[in-house]
């Protein structure tokens, strides 16, 4: 109970223009934001760009965050929007497929499987991809994903299930 009032005070301070308070609030959100953007864009440079843009936009729009609202889903929603438009992407990174350097300990099979999975994820429509990344990669509960995406919990659950099903089908197709 002691954490919540302190956090609310920070938020109020940030809303009133205290930039240090905003940075303190933002700090724990950067890593999940980066993972979300990375999962959606599959490019670490583009993910960093998306988080930077989202941070700036969050700073500009902080007063729009309603009292009592959680900052994490609000910020992740902004990151998701940034990924949607990949606003600062350059030609070279618009649909770049990143092929990681193969570590000695990693088998060729697992690299192929990773590539297949990333390609299959990229082929999903945006809603399903977002739901899967948030639920499986960031481990967020369905309720929070519903807040981020503005959909109902039931709809999010359906997107995760259909996304998983499509992912499986695409992998099967690929492997014949």
């Amino acid at each position: 109970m002691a954490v919540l009032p302190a956090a609310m005070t920070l938020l109020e301070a940030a809303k009133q223009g205290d930039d240090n308070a905003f940075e303190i609030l933002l700090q724990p959100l950067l890593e999940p934001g980066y993972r979300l953007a990375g999962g959606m864009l599959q490019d670490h440079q583009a993910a960093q760009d998306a988080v930077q843009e989202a941070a700036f936009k969050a700073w500009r729009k902080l007063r729009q965050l309603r009292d009592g609202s959680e900052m994490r889903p609000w910020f992740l929603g902004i990151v998701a929007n940034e990924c949607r438009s990949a606003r600062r992407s350059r030609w070279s990174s618009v649909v770049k497929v990143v092929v990681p350097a193969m570590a000695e300990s990693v088998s060729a099979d697992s690299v192929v499987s990773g590539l297949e999975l990333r390609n299959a994820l990229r082929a999903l429509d945006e809603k399903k991809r977002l739901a899967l990344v948030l639920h499986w990669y960031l481990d967020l509960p369905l309720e929070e994903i519903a807040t981020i995406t503005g959909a109902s919990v039931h709809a999010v659950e359906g997107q995760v299930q259909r996304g998983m099903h499509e992912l499986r089908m695409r992998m099967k197709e690929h492997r014949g």
Partner: protein
Amino acid sequence: MDNERTLKIQLRQALDEVLPPAPWLEAAVRDDLRKRRTSRSADRGLGLRMAWPRSGMQIAAGLLIVVLAAAAVAALIDFRYRSTHVAPAAIDVPAYEAMVSRHIDQLVTAGNGVDCTTLQSRCPTPGWPVVTAEKQFLADLNGSEPPARFAVIDAQMRRHVVVAIADLNAVVAAYTAQDQTGLDRANYLLGSQGNWIVTIGHAIAQSHEGSGAAYVESVRTANQNLALCTGCQPLELTGSVDCTGIQAVLCEADVVYAKSDVESVEAALASVGAPNSLAAQDALLQRDLARADSGLLEMSNAQLTDDQAAFEAGRLLLQQALPAINADIAGILGG
């Protein structure tokens, strides 16, 4: 893959492979925020406009950009001339989709590995492959009459390609003149053009006729972005402080954000064709979106050349189009 748990673990591993830990991220974000806050304070508090550089090389960069803008205008006039004087060949939907898809792939391939964002970058010389790819795309667009369903978005695609070529040339000019400010601006605007062309190109390439429900759902989803359009709000206000100087960082960001949110609705319409029952409403929405998009393009071009009058003309177009778009969408969603 045996079960959900296995698939989940494999997916995590697959994403971790392309996403290295980013211990620098916090510092990078903080640094970026502080820089941009400073720009914002300068824009708001002092009402200053970004001063043109004074060194000889930087003045040369300014002149080069003006010359390139003139070239872009000439290209636009040429494009208009061609579009009215050359009889293009009519092509059907699959052929049009295939043509667009082929060119988008070529553009992406040509742009792959190109990085000209700093004065230390190894930038290509004028005539680099991505410019050639853009010109070939434009030539094919000019040489074909799109199916009716894509007529509006096709015209916008041509405009975006023309502006992208001007932006690419501005990148080269700024790099040649060793003008980092010009390089940042040109790259920022180019990134936004590139994103529009690729997003809309993919939407066209993968488009399909939708049922009434699918079309309405597609418009509803895209409209969520437009409703949040953070760039639109300051641009709708004529006296907005963000654009006291049209080359200010905030003003550039507003235009790019607004462009992206308008783009999301354009992409939705391109990818899911309206059923006959909604064809008339779809045509109205496409027309109004094209007006907003053209206004934003004009503003973006004006930012490159610091042309306040052209910027305001584009802004007026946007201001007129946005309420019409909202009304069109309300009609579709309410119907």
